[in-house]
């Protein structure tokens, strides 16, 4: 279990994370979302022990991480841009990781290599961006860590590879009880793979929980009237978003769906339909509700 207690971090007197309390249960796949500069990467770097929190505590299974090799052996952090030694090959990188991670699984490595067509003895600097990402993921998964931290690691992969990897990760998590934290802007991907999600905004974790619970808490309802009405008719719902097209409205609101529908029906609409809402839309509407991107 990853436990963050009142974690703060500043860079050059600029506060990036502010007293964050956050828990990631063992074996869960956590998606970390948030606007640019929200502190997602900083959070992952703190969890992996790359940097030290200014205040608060970070533990993995009850043990501190920073500069503690025994704990860090169980954690693998794959940065948004994967690192490779100068002029190295995949085989050399495998040797490099094997030095530090005794859990490195040769069988897994071979299996991954069979799934992903990466030449083992060619210089990595000759690879395309997508191949480099695959290489990084092959190495990260072969390390077989208890905690895998992926910082926008799927960006740059083609859809087929993305799907293959997602399946692979899902399978391995089931088999090995691995805890995975994935930061990404692509919520559709996270939705497919993550069972939990957290939203970071304004230096804090503002939303965290099961994907299904979150999705169940946000509702998109289409409402039609026979006569002309104003948008503010829905103000009593504290909607995250209201769209108007003629006499038809699309309202996004948080809360109990039964209660929301009952309240809307009292307005005597001619049409009330609940529309499907995906995670990306929830993220967008939630952020809009917080004032992010509204001016554009």
């Amino acid at each position, binding site marked *: 279990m990853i436990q963050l207690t009142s974690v703060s971090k500043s860079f050059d007197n600029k506060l990036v994370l502010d007293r964050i309390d956050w828990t990631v249960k063992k074996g869960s796949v956590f998606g970390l979302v948030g606007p640019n500069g929200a502190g997602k990467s900083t959070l992952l770097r703190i969890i992996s022990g*790359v940097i030290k929190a200014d205040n608060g505590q970070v533990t993995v299974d009850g043990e501190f991480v920073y500069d503690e*090799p025994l704990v860090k052996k169980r954690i693998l952090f794959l*940065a948004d*841009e994967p690192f490779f030694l100068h002029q190295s090959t995949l085989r050399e990188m495998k040797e490099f990781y094997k030095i530090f991670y005794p859990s490195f699984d040769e069988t897994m490595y071979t299996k991954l290599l069979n799934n992903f067509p990466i030449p083992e003895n060619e210089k990595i600097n000759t690879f395309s961006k997508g191949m480099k990402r695959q290489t990084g993921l092959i190495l990260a998964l072969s390390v077989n860590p208890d905690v895998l931290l992926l910082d926008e690691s799927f960006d740059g992969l083609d859809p087929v590879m993305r799907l293959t990897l997602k399946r692979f990760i899902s399978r391995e998590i089931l088999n090995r009880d691995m805890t995975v934290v994935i930061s990404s802007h692509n919520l559709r991907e996270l939705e497919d793979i993550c069972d939990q999600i957290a939203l970071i905004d304004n230096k804090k974790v503002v939303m965290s929980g099961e994907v299904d619970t979150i999705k169940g808490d946000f509702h998109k309802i289409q409402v039609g009237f026979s006569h002309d009405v104003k948008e503010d008719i829905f103000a009593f719902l504290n909607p995250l978003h209201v769209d108007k097209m003629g006499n038809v409205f699309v309202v996004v609101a948080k809360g109990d769906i039964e209660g929301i529908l009952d309240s809307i029906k009292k307005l005597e609409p001619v049409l009330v339909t609940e529309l499907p809402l995906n995670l990306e839309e929830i993220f967008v509407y939630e952020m809009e509700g917080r004032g992010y991107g509204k001016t554009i």
Partner: protein
Amino acid sequence: MAKLFSFKINGAYLRFLLKRNTRFMVLTGIAMTVLFPILAFTNYLIDGSYNQFVFTTGRVFILLLLVLSVFIVPFLLFSYLNSKKNLDVYHALPIKRRDLYFTTLLAAFAIILIPYTLVYIIGNVYYFSVIPNVDVILLIKQYYFSLALTLSIVTPILFAMMNTGTGVDGLLYGLLLHIIPSILYGAYVTFGSAVLLGFSVADPSLFLLYASPIWAIFELTFNTTRIFPNPILISLYWIAFGLITSWVVLYYYQIRRSEKAEEPFTNKWFFPVISSFFTFIVQFFLYSAFITLSGRGLDFRTLIFPFFLTFVMYLILDVIANRGFKHLIRGIINFAIIGALSLSTFTFGTLFDGFGYITRVPDANNVEKVELEYYDPYSFLYQSYYYDQTTFPIQKMYSEAEDIATIIETHEAILEGFKENGYKKWDGYSPLESTPRSGLDSALYQQSSNVSIVYHLKSGAKIARSYTVPFGWTTDLLNLVDSENVFKNRYPMLANPDAVVRNTVFDILDPLMSNSVTLSGKVNFKLFAAAYKSDYLSLNEQQHNYPDTGVLGIIHLTSCTSVDMCITRGIPIDARYTQTLSLLASSGVTLPTFISSEKLPIVVLPDATNEKAPFFHIQSLLGNVDFFTPSYYDEVKEGSVAIGMVKYIEIPQERIVELLPYIRTNAISEKAIGVLRVESNIVLSDRNTQYMFYLLDEDALPLLQQWRTELEVKEINYESIIYKYE
């Protein structure tokens, strides 16, 4: 504290780094092998023999390559520090940062030293097999020094890397950190030489030995004659420096933030401190250099150019540091502060006589011993040829209280002379107005002499001064003639008889060197040396400089310390050398007497009308230039050329014996009496003229007066008396 020294080397990672850098090691190994010993082997193929110099050159070059690889390897191994993403990955690895740092440092050390060590061993095994009498201990010591100092060369580069964000900045400032000590020393020496009268450095390489590890590695490895400071202690100092700086670097390594990793400077104080200090000392250096070149003393017009030159240099550094002209105004303000500081320090240092440097003379009570080098134009105390010094190193150290007092008096007299001339340096030619010592012919007085003094204080400190002064200011030093040190330099083979392997010539000659008797096989050389030394040291400076008895004989001695390292001396004996004379007598030696010579001896007579007080000296028997004061000659104009004409008389062979009681050598006269010149039958081994000159004592005046009337007084060109034209 215990935590500070607790780290673990990750053996697997160490091996991984070594494996990854095998090609680099092979390449440097090949490059080194080409220089040592392949260079020597190819030289053998050409010359057919092995040359020790080529081996030594090879060793110098492989050490140069070692230093070069010290600059390259840290950038190969620690390059991840200059990339945010790379640094994040390394810091995410399950290894403590200090363990990662020390493992990488050890790997760097190994990558640098493995090829050097292999080539050093292979090269020296080859050297050992082809060159006889190899000093193996010396070779091991030399290897130890290169080993001991490598870390101290690496750490400043790492320190620069930890404070900069790019490889180029790291390299630039690593180089800068290494050259700063040399520029600092250069600035100090140039400033001292330019504006400080008497400026001298006791041990020119001492500062750099402690300030520059690159200098120290070459000095310790190749200067095999250095005794003080003890080379082993210096190497330990550098090991300690390397270890301490390793931990300083570790501190910066541990706090290195990836957010700043790619910025030019990760430490906001690094650039201002280093570049300001660098600019300050470069300014100081250039001010001093331009003042020296202009020869105008402190003239602010001279400082304008170096000021602006350093301004441009500072701005370039500033622009590189800030990657543009964004902070140009701030850079100009910074430079103005540095410029004002250096200009004011330089000006005050110049105007206030180096803050007391010029006038400082130590109290005799605080002086333990004094090192003196004195090169006067007449070789009054001793002359030492360059090839003599390789056989018997010149002895400079005076530790007797009386000798120390004499040197301090001379130093004070020199400063008194300069004080009257506004503490301006003397060019060695233009006559000086003041006359701290009277009683000399001006021509003698103004002759340029060099005096270098190094006081070794009881506190362990040293004060060094060096002057070019008129000879007349240094005559107090003639009182040192009775010191053992002067004896050692005049007659080194008698002072160190144990060092003499053999004497190729050991004869006694009559006073005029017409006749000889060998002493080899008759007189024990060591007993002779002891007796002569005892006689010499029993005489005081008055008795040495103003002998009151005639020369009885001259020992012709050529002594060798090895096959081709020999020196020759003519050693005069008179009646005061009682122990020497007793030894010769007890060994059955009869002093040879004068036999006729083909050439008539002549006496050069002083000009009777010249009333100048001549200070005249007959040089020791190996003097290569003899000198007559103007009291001896009249200047005659031939066109625009002034020729000195001297009067002389030729003495019949049978009458020369009358003069023998009055002839002196190694003597000073304060009156112009006369000089005897003979063309000797016997030539001292390495003297290039047969002319010998003897000073005549005042008691010879009646005889000379008589000869003036009885014999013809002739006149001849002054130079014809001195030099023999065949």
